[in-house]
């Protein structure tokens, strides 16, 4: 599908300060886009707005997703329509067990889309399969959601949710941060395994290393709330070599 996600002339402010300025971005179904930019350029603002977080003032522009006005939907409706945000800093929620949370999320998603809930045995089999790919033990699934998890464990858990929910648009907000070399490979390969013709990805990152394992179709350079240049994977290589200086001066 063309223009699966279409952002047109989007401007966003927080406390009267303009964070995103006149942003245009089109992602077709099956495409992987990378959004690269320095700290504080508005990358996380964009991902939060796509997921529906409150507290952002959309001063101009439109976002359509699968042909519908995304902005009219609540965060849970967006999620159930297929948008998944892998958080840069996943929250810790005491008392809520990881496996119960994922089961509830999957049931909500299936119910919204008119599907019967998975049978308990099928759910257990599925989550164990996915968890094994990520090196996640049964014990870890029974733990409280992200409570006491290391940075790497939290990112693995985000990847597990991504694999279980199978969204049509995954937004990965600095999923590579906080991962050691081995965990990085595991998470990147797990994310890569979800790639297909029916789903798209928007990878938000500072660095090229994630894009070496999850090859993007298009790379965007995002500076001060705007895309100032788009190109192929070679753009990421250039940033890795020379930084953002050329773009800052553009």
């Amino acid at each position, binding site marked *: 599908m063309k223009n699966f996600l279409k952002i047109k002339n989007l401007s966003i402010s927080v406390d009267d300060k303009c964070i995103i300025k006149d942003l245009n971005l089109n992602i077709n179904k099956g495409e992987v886009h990378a959004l690269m930019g320095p700290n504080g350029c508005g990358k996380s603002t964009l991902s939060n707005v796509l*997921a529906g977080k*409150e507290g952002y003032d959309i001063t101009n522009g439109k976002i359509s997703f699968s042909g519908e006005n995304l902005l009219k939907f609540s965060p849970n409706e967006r999620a159930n329509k297929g948008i998944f945000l892998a958080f840069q800093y996943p*929250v810790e929620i005491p*008392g*809520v067990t990881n496996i119960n949370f994922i089961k509830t999320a999957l049931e909500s998603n299936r119910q*919204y889309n008119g599907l019967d809930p998975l049978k308990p045995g099928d759910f257990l089999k599925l989550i164990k399969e996915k968890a094994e790919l990520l090196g996640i033990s049964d014990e870890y699934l029974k733990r409280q959601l992200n409570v006491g998890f290391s940075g790497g464990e939290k990112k693995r858990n985000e990847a597990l949710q991504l694999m279980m929910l199978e969204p049509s648009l995954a937004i990965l907000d600095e999923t590579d941060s906080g991962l050691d070399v081995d965990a990085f490979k595991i998470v990147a390969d797990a994310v890569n395994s979800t790639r297909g013709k029916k789903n798209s990805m928007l990878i938000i990152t500072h660095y090229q290393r994630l894009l070496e394992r999850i090859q993007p179709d298009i790379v965007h350079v995002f500076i001060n709330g705007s895309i100032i240049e788009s190109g192929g994977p070679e753009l990421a290589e250039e940033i890795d070599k020379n930084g953002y200086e050329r773009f800052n001066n553009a």
Partner: protein
Amino acid sequence: MAMKDSTMPNFLNIKNFDKSFDDLSSLSQLREEAFLNLKDIGIPSKKFERWKYNDLKNDIRNIEFSLCKTSIKIKKNKLDKFEINEIDYFKKNKNHYLQPLKYLKDEGVVNLNLSYSNLFKVLTIKKDLKKPIIVDIKSEGHGMSFPRILINIYNNVNAEIQFLNRGGLGFINQITEINIGKNSSVKISRLNESSSIHSETFFSNLGRNSEINLKNLSIPKNKSRFQVFNSFIDEYSSAQFKSVSIPYENSKDDFLVHNNHLSSNCKSDVGMRSILGKETESSFQALIDVENKIKNSRADQDCRAILLDEKASMNAKPEMKIYNNDVICKHGTTIGSLNQDHIFYLNSRGLNKFEAEKILLQGIISEYISEDSPLINFLPEKYK
């Protein structure tokens, strides 16, 4: 002699009231002693007692001064053997009748019960229990009732007891007292879902190397207060109190926990989780009391209240009265609404507002009431 609290004219002279309890006449002297204390202290009110956030005097002002029908049923495993006594126990052990006053001299609500006690159960447990004892306390109709439960646990005994407080439309003023022998441990699950105005004073007296673990689920449909006094009589004893409070709409649920470290090397741990919906009110007062010569104490307090409605309110008052430096203490209180970042995280996975709130509240409850707790069956449907 007129009562100090003249706002309670419906409290009769103990002698008149006593006529209705022929069985209790042999305890008249003791009851009269308690009644004189009550006259001196007055009916419980904010002015005279340690409670700062609720005024029982106003709550019970209009309750009819007659007895309502109350029962205490003991359910047990056939294989478990223990003694069950009633009024006869106190007739034979008169020195036990006023024992609560040994630890509390200024509690009007305790004197009120000791004056008018109309229902007694005394359990004496000498051996380990294979299954929990269930103490089911029910009341019916308007009026008042003053049940008293005493549990004596001998040395080297492990026991589990469930208390169920239910029913009623009047005023229940209950005393529960547990004496725990050395090297013994007792696990208690307490449910309060009374429709009456419910006041319960719970004492535990802990022997050497003994332990009490009290889990409480309070879902009152009226006004409730629960006050817990743990006294560490000998060393190496520990007391844990973990409570979940979910009052019904327009209800009030108040707690006071006093851990009295009378011996060295003892531990106390108090935790409160309150979920407060429309027009509900709760309070939590917790005191850690460590005397001068008492060493190596460990005492924790933790209170968390979630306000789900703008007309819900919570008062928390953690207190420490510590006269020895050899103590490790921890206390913390948070009162607020559900964390919006948590809700957004759950929404972003497809859970709607109701589902997100439910899973967060279930998480808070499950900190104290786990899936294997008997109390889980009594949770309101929306939190199961």
